[in-house]
């Protein structure tokens, strides 16, 4: 079976930048969010990812940077022939791993 490789930025705000590589079973048509969910279930449950609608393209919560480009993880297709580099949104404060502070300021308690 083909695999996809993800290089995922890890750590909390202020930690030294670090990337973990995960090999994920590749399925035709699968998305980056599918792969991240697979990693959380089968490899590392501590991986922090923000998402809500999963696949419907309505919530916009899973916005991250893939190979430097800002995209929705749920609509970006996985590729099998090279490692994909996943980073949190560059213009937002990182909380942990791929999760950034995307709450509108008035909707935050802290």
């Amino acid at each position, binding site marked *: 079976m083909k695999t996809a490789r993800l290089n995922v930025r890890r750590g909390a705000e202020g930690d030294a930048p670090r990337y973990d590589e995960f090999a994920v079973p590749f399925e035709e048509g699968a998305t980056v969010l599918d792969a991240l969910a697979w990693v959380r279930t089968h490899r590392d*449950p501590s*991986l922090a990812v923000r998402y809500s609608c999963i696949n419907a393209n*309505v919530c916009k919560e899973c916005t991250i940077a893939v190979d430097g480009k800002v995209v929705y993880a749920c609509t970006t297709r996985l590729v099998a022939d090279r490692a994909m580099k996943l980073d949190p949104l560059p213009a937002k404060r990182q909380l*942990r791993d791929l999760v950034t502070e995307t709450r509108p300021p008035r909707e935050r308690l802290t």
Partner: protein
Amino acid sequence: MYAAISAARAGAGQVLLLDKSLVGRGGATIMAQMTVAAALAEESDDDWRWHLADTLEAGRGLCDETLAAVLCEEAPIRIREMGEWQVGWARRDGGRIAQVTAPGHSRPRCCYVDFLNTGPAVAATLRRQVSRIDAIRRLSNLTVTDLVVNDGAVVGAVALDTASGEPVTIQAPATIIATGGLTRIYRRNSASANMGGDGYALALMAGAPLVDMEFVQFFPIGHLAPRLVGMDPIMWDPFRYKLGGRLLDGAGREFLTRYGSDETDAYTTPRDIASYAITKEVAAGRGSPHGGVYLSFEHIPAGELRAAFGPVIERLAKNGIDLAREPVEVSPIAHYHMGGIVVDERMASPVPGLYAAGEAVGGANGANRLSGNAIPEALVFGERAGRFAATANRQASWRASAAAEAVGRIRELAEGRAGDVAAAALLDQLRALMWDDVGPLRHAVGLERALARLREMQAALGHVAIAPGRVANASLADWFELRASLIAAETVAEGAFLRRESRGAHQREDFPDADPAQAASWRTAPNVSGAVAGLMAGSS
């Protein structure tokens, strides 16, 4: 969101609108594609009593008729109000709101915002209204973990601020559960991430009974293959009834007629019967390669397809789907939950201070929900819950010690701990278990297996590993989701085990017929520990 609007309108000076996700971005409403049922009589004669008759018929004898009547009578008011708030209902040339006949309706009654945009438009409209009201404070990424009960009344809540990992206590004279349902506990689902049954678990732990929990609506033609990205899996329904898409077995043969449904003239098969027929075909080895059946539009001329699908055709093409040339595979998919919290016509639960709105309410839809009734329910029940909660007398006062255990649990778990199993893995197992053993087709053997496994998983909660680090700690959030989902799952499995007949969305292989003696609702009784204590027959 509507409950918050309504509470402020009724005079509540301070309304807190909490969301596990981002306010107004998660939940079920935003996922809805079409349709919204209301007896507006724009296309033909209609009356809310006829809408009620269709709702009761679809509910297979189990609807709470008081709630169903409230829903049908007030739906037109709320739907016209959404129109005044510029939701953008599709209109005919003369300006009348367009209404179509969805399955189970006796006349054209279902309005929509065109091209799969109904839910996002309703959610955006409510977000806009909420943002204009100063009395409403919105807070995102707060996961309510427990309701606080003092002197037998709900007096507030404890929440986990998932961004900071800190506990938050909220004092409130009235609390409304508007969390949606539990469809996320099924492997095949059309749910957003936060539909894991939290609201039911919170209510049960606070002492409020639940009703009709065994009735999970499996939307019959959820998208299965080829992989479809960026579109909700329930998108096919409106096109099926606009164009008459044909359902075919793995060999390309029609099969619905064998289940007593003739679709020669129009798409009329109710959801429960269609789901049952597809599940039986697959079980008999007559399914499609991915375990569903085919939905074919190949008989429709390309021009007609383009006119009906509009911009959706391009989105499908991006997914490599050309409807003129090949069918897609579809399968039943957990879509909605009929059961929920027991409430009266004020949306008040039997526990003082606790209300419910939307899908979290149980009873209005009985054993099977009529298509188009979910968004009216969110609006109508939300309006009532907000109004009555805002004007009710406070039943008991806040007591910090009543919140101490819940606050302490968050603090303790947020420290992280070693363990031999991950909540994320258990959630994955839970979804598989519920699909396989408590899914569209049930049997005592599978249900007993599921109940035993659910109890093992509940025991495993005590030794689930949690990673260190409070900020945005995914494994900490998973623990609370797992706890809630296991409670919700057990109520479904228990109800399904006890209902020894087939009715609506609940289909038993070992009891394939409806039993008139069981035409009543089961209630799940709470106990102090929050686990399911037992069921008591309630009047429907």
